């Protein structure tokens, strides 16, 4: 497969997954603010902080309100990570690999893009914000389903899954981080029903509430962290994402699991092994936020080595041996 094509498939899937997760970010905050006790101010700044684009947001908007944050995360063409920008980028990537993906995949990306573009140009208000977020999630799921059902599960598909799951692992860690930035009304509110409501809102935005209940039954902060970080079967849990990413990486290079042929496999294998042998105490010992921060840095390194290994244009050397002459 052409390096450029592999890169486009990878990024196509990262952008679609990113758009879906931005919808989840906003959704978690909407859920949280709806449950706020009377008289408490809505908190929108924490949301921007978790995306990592806090600085550029403050520079452009100055003040975090529901309107400015929603515009920044969903509809702002100047924010390279907004849902609108993600769909523009996903579509451009899809357009450049139309001959490799199925027509059904292309048509779905195109429809998804048109839906977002039209919704944004009509304006997102409190009335249509929630349906819009649901639409974004549903369109992303549809794209995923179409990809699985219409594209050969060969090299291209593995690059698609790799991109999608690395993006998802990063974003699940950020959803978990929203709770860190979200201030409780008082310090003593930890462990109160209100605290519990926040944790369940968070699970809900990762579509994890039912699966969590089946495993743990009741809400406790440690169990939520354990579930979203360490579960090996829930598809939005970080560890699950790393396991499947690693499978795809090995399927691409053809090497055995447990060994590595390149820097990408080495780094991802290490990171996955760390989680294999971690329990929730390891995650929260120095604070969950610190754990998440460190994890994101390591995941970035994995992304960098995937670029170096597969996508970066490398010099191709002559195979004719150089003859030495007297």
């Amino acid at each position, binding site marked *: 497969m*052409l390096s450029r094509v592999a890169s486009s498939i990878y990024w196509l899937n990262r952008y679609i997954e990113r758009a879906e997760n931005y919808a989840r970010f906003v959704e978690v905050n909407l859920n949280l603010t709806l449950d706020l006790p009377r008289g408490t101010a809505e908190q929108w700044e924490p949301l921007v902080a978790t995306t990592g684009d806090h600085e550029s947001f403050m520079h452009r908007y100055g003040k975090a309100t529901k309107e400015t944050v929603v515009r920044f995360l969903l509809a702002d063409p100047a924010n390279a990570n907004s849902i609108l920008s993600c769909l523009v980028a996903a579509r*451009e990537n899809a357009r450049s690999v139309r001959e490799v993906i199925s027509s059904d995949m292309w048509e779905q990306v*195109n429809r998804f893009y048109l839906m977002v573009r039209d919704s944004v140009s009509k304006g997102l208000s409190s009335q249509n914000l929630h349906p819009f977020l649901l639409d974004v999630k549903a369109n992303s799921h549809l794209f995923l389903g179409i990809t699985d059902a219409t594209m050969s599960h060969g090299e291209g598909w593995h690059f698609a899954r790799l991109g999608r799951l690395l993006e998802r692992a990063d974003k699940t860690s950020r959803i978990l981080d929203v709770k860190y930035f979200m201030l409780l009304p008082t310090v003593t509110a930890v462990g109160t029903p209100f605290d519990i409501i926040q944790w369940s809102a968070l699970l809900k935005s990762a579509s994890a509430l039912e699966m969590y209940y089946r495993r743990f039954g009741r809400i406790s902060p440690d169990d939520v962290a354990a579930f979203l970080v360490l579960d090996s079967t829930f598809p939005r849990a970080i560890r699950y994402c790393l396991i499947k990413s690693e499978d795809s990486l090995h399927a691409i290079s053809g090497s055995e699991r447990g060994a590595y042929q390149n820097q990408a496999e080495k780094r991802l294998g290490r990171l996955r092994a760390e989680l294999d042998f971690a329990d929730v105490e390891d995650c929260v010992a120095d604070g969950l936020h610190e754990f998440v921060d460190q994890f994101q840095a390591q995941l970035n390194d994995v992304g960098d080595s995937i670029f170096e290994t597969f996508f970066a244009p490398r010099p191709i050397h002559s195979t004719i041996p150089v003859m030495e002459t007297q």
Partner: protein
Amino acid sequence: MKLSSYDPGEFYDELYEGQGQPRPGSTVLLRKLASLPEGELKKRQEAAERVILNMGMTFGVYGSDHGHEQIFPFDIVPRIVVSSEWEHIESGLRQRMRALNFFIDDVYHDQKIIKDGVVPSELLHSGKGFLPPCMGLNPPRRIWCHIAGIDLVRIGDGRYYVLEDNARCPSGVAYVLEARQVMKRTFPELFETYRVRPVDGYPSQLLETLRSLSDLPDPTIVILTPGIFNSAYYEHSLLAQKMGVELVESSDLIVVDGFVHMRTTKGSQRVDVIYRRINDDYLDPLAFRPDSVLGVPGLMESYKRGRVALANAPGTGVSDDKAIYAYVPKIINYYLAEEPILPNVPTYLCSDRRDRTYVLEHLDQLVVKATNEAGGYGMMIGPHASKQEREDCAHHIEADPRNYIAQPTLALSRVPTLVEDHLEGRHVDLRPYVLYGRDIYVLPGGMTRVALRKGSLVVNSSQGGGNKDTWVLS
């Protein structure tokens, strides 16, 4: 819907012999349209447009400020060509394709046609399409132009004429394939009654043509595109998809040890045949334009040594120069000893003093074209131009006569076209596609381009033109 008020007017109408009198092949179609309830055709047109939007059928327009991508305008009423008419067209296209290839091969070898005084030497050497680096080259089976799109028009006398040849990188065939898909989705019942010859075979015919350029049992074939910002990118990706070959950009290709390779996730892989959709000038910065960022350094050298095949071969532009066009009837006669089956449109060469004087005196009646432009750029339609535009045109001609030809303003035939809720005649042309591999293949149908603006004669998509499906009946 009511069709009785449709007025074919003074033009040749492709579906009507006269008011209320359908042509033989069109009866069933027009009866069907007449049976539709008022507003139904418009509904289907809108449904077709939604399909086009969702499929992402787009083209790019250079210098347009509406963003670089536009949905292709499409009209739901098809053009019909009956089989006897098509046989005539097809035989004319085959004849022209053979003659043009003989001409190109001769021009890059002995130039007998020049020595025999049939085509003037200065006309050949002054054209931008003639590439001296191609002298003496021998592409596989001495075929240079494998893929051509030849523009035809029909005028008042009901005869088809060749308007121009496109022998470099003709585009538009993707719209033929997609227009048919759209029509099948929106008018399934008509396909049950009509025997419309299918166009779906084009990609596999193209693949066979490209395969014929290599002696290897399973050559690696790629399409070379300038990239997603090119106006025809949609077509490049569609053809790659339908042939199952890689679509590459020039940065994906590299010449190693004299052979062309593409960069893959598993190292480099040799490429044997390139269907290139970039112009000669941009193929190889070492051979042609050193400023080109699109090219592959070393590609021409590899091609000259026969290590990679290119379709079309570099240098075919010599045959579709609009001044050379005027000589094509003589070219056919010279190489094949046959009379042209499809006649040319009368053409005045501004490089010829007598022709030029005539052109300058009759600018208000003529269409003036730049010899080396395509896509409707550099064209002046005398009867529709302002005084200022005609004066500008005269200056251009006097400054560089070789670069201009003129033709009479043709009363192009019309096809009923949906305008709001009723049908009106709109002018059309027809671009059939011809492939030349082991044999010559002519796609049954082609791109019927329609000038959607009332009275307009310019059918180019970059200038307000649209597209209709073309039904060749069997």
